């Protein structure tokens, strides 16, 4: 017997406002809404609702809202409703619980426990509307020999670097997990913003090669879509060792999402589940990673930086030290609140560590070892605002990857149902009628707006600190103070408590 589980959310329709235009009905891929021709009224089936808010947003009279059901089992601080329901679900099905997007559990968000400094009297704030306020930067190795030509001019001995006009990149999201239109939006936005988007492990659709100079291509354990042209088209290559949302496991794209186009792009059969293994089967230790790094560099004639992406785990600092000595140019660290198109719920919610702590430790470790210039540090995993970017850079990051925030800009409402493939916002789906809901003309502009707005805010905050180059903020931890943190946390973050003077 299947235990009935009360829907978690209810669709509330204000019948005084509903004009029965049926937009909600037409826009719900989950078939929640229907028109009752007998009564002339709209109805809703709560059990199908994933709370994506598509109907709420499109209802022209704002007659809809989705509320948390107040149905409850006997209140139990240990066995809350969701925990109980998950037991029922697993007893019903015998399956691993699946979920999507980032860890929603109430773990501490360290970004929110750090405060930023501003100038007063002893040095001046700088007005970004009047003075240049530089957010441009380069990613990659900075360690290089000083060599001079016959005229005494410095020779360029630097390894290839990535130039960014803003300290924000779009993180890896594969074509397959997200739609063609979402990818196009990201690619075009990256081009306009002077930054990069990342193919994820889904290969690069042939239409998007033209955005190559703003593309980071990923080489993941499944090696989907990896071939010569793919590597050569890109600005940089990222080896994905792990993902914050699901450290220690691989990926699983359901066959339903492997459309003809996705199949061609990934170079895998259509309609068959795409499994990326947990490890790279050619990397069982750090020296194997070094070989892959140099294989990729050889393949692309040392013209492109190689990024190694890891999930933030307990030993991240030591791993990062190994990566910095592996020949990689950039380390990307993905915190445990990073998003995913599908992950086992238990892993998403219980594995990994906060990006803030991992970042602070990695940056310090690399400095302690004197190898911070061997690599740039990219961080992702729930960078939610320009303030998070500022704090990340002050902790020691070079730039930030944003994934969830970018999807939100595209319309995502964090219903965490990506794995079902029926994204009403046209993002995490391959169904043509749903994909077309995301017009890249709108999507790319919204992404550009978001990052541009963040950049303005970053400039404002930098100006407040009297800093006019993002490079002078990097690792400038005196600009941060902790609040509500223990001594251990302050030590790990390498910052002082709010109120402590310089």
């Amino acid at each position: 017997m299947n235990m009935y589980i009360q829907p978690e959310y209810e669709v509330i329709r204000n019948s005084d406002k509903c004009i029965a235009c049926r937009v909600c009905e037409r826009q719900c891929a989950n078939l929640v809404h229907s028109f009752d021709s007998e009564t002339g009224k709209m109805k809703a089936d709560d059990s199908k609702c994933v709370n994506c808010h598509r109907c709420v947003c499109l209802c022209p009279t704002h007659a809809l809202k989705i509320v948390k059901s107040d149905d409850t089992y006997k209140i139990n601080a240990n066995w809350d409703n969701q925990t109980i329901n998950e037991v029922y679900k697993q007893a019903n099905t015998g399956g691993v619980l699946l979920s999507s997007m980032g860890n929603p559990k109430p773990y501490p968000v360290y970004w929110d426990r750090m405060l930023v400094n501003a100038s007063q009297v002893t040095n001046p704030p700088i007005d970004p509307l009047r003075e240049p306020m530089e957010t441009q930067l380069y990613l990659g190795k900075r360690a290089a020999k000083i060599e001079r030509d016959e005229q005494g001019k410095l020779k360029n001995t630097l390894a290839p670097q990535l130039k960014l006009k803003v300290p924000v990149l779009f993180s890896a999201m594969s074509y397959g997990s997200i739609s063609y239109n979402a990818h196009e939006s990201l690619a075009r936005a990256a081009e306009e913003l002077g930054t990069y988007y990342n193919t994820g492990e889904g290969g690069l659709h042939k239409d998007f090669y033209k955005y190559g100079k703003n593309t980071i291509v990923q080489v993941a354990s499944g090696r989907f879509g990896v071939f010569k042209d793919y590597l050569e088209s890109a600005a940089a290559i990222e080896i994905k060792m792990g993902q914050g949302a699901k450290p220690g496991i691989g990926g699983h794209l359901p066959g339903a999402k492997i459309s003809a186009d996705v199949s061609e792009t990934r170079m895998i059969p259509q309609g068959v589940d795409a499994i990326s293994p947990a490890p790279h089967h050619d990397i069982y230790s750090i020296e194997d990673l070094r070989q892959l790094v140099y294989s990729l560099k050889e393949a692309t004639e040392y013209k492109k930086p190689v990024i190694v992406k890891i999930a933030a785990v307990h030993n991240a600092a030591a791993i990062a030290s190994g990566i910095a000595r592996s020949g990689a140019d950039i380390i990307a660290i993905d915190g445990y609140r990073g998003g995913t198109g599908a992950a086992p719920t238990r892993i998403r919610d219980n594995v990994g560590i906060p990006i803030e702590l991992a970042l602070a430790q990695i940056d310090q470790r690399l400095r302690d070892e004197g190898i911070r210039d061997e690599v740039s540090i990219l961080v992702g995993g729930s960078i939610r605002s320009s303030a998070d970017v500022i704090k990340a850079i002050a902790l020691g990051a070079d730039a930030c990857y944003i994934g969830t925030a970018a999807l939100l800009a595209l319309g995502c409402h964090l219903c965490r149902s990506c794995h079902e493939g029926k994204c009403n916002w046209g993002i995490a789906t391959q169904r043509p009628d749903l994909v077309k809901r995301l017009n890249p003309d709108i999507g790319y502009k919204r992404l550009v707006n978001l990052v541009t707005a963040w950049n303005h805010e970053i400039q404002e905050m930098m100006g407040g600190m009297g800093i006019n180059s993002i490079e002078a903020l990097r690792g400038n931890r005196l600009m941060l103070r902790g609040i509500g943190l223990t001594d251990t946390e302050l030590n790990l973050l390498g910052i002082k408590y709010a109120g402590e003077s310089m």
Partner: protein
Amino acid sequence: MLPKEGQFRDPSGCAVTGVIDRSGRGMTGEGMIEAISVMHDRSNGLGGGFAGYGIYPHYKDFYAFHLFYDKKEAQEGAEAFIRRHFEIVYSSEIQTRKLPSVTDEPLIFRYFLAPLPQKLANSHLDEREYVARCVNRINAEIAGAYVFSSGKNMGIFKGVGYPEDIGRFYRLEEYEGYAWTCHGRYPTNTPGWWGGAHPFGLLDFSVVHNGEISSYDANRRYIEMFGYKCTLQTDTEVITYIIDYLVRRRGLTLEETAHVLAASFWSTIADKGEEAKEQETLLRRMFPSLLVTGPFSIILGYTGGLMALGDRLKLRSMVCAEKGDRAYISSEESAIRKIEPNLDRVWSPAGGEAVVFELYGKGGLAR
């Protein structure tokens, strides 16, 4: 009791000034004292100091260490250390003059030193690196002892008080050098520790600085990767280390160093000629963490020259002037006019523009 420098970060406002006679003729410290006294209100009595170059012609081949000792035991510890690493050619207490306005002075000693050859050889270090490390060790490891000057044929004289009083205290009118810099300090939260006064020196580099940089911790955490220890947590200290690192250890010219410290904005670089664009871009890409932001104007003293450099937004005042062989640098023009009313030329360098004055024909650091 308030903590002393090194136990907290100590930004401060200031007055700086400097003079060089490019023909190498000597000047007593009197001129500097007069000049800085004009800018009395830029200091608050909590720090003043001078650096003189060419002042020890008889000992010009030896490292001249100036040390403060809080107590006798510190002197014993420090001298033991010094003896283990150097031959002491000559040592004495530095002659001072008692003034009512200068109080709580520590013991102040001077040593002319040569590294012990065997020790130096065993260290596998370049001689100057050897000396620099010894200075760092004394300052970090011997409580109550502090080396505040360590170059050859140059000396730093500093203390708590107004700079003109400090100058008199050290009897600088009795010293003669071809170049001088001077600093009057306006710290905002200092207890007034003598070691915390400026100039800050490392080997023959001395830096006086006016301003409060906003990039401090980014610069500090970066430069500390290369063996420096920013024990004083002052801007002057970190700037001195940056200059030492780039010039002495990486071999950049002063001009290149200025392009790192006070790099042109990307938008400015974009408008420059191909060669400048390429070189400045390269420097910014190699040393982004050594960009110094926020207000500063510094005078770098080194053997054979002075360099003036202000931040790229020109948030602090800085005036340069010339009269015959003499060149002047100051926070305020008035200080220069005080000692040389009839100048050939007076100008304000642009933000980020390095101005270098060197002895004629001696081939300094500028290229």
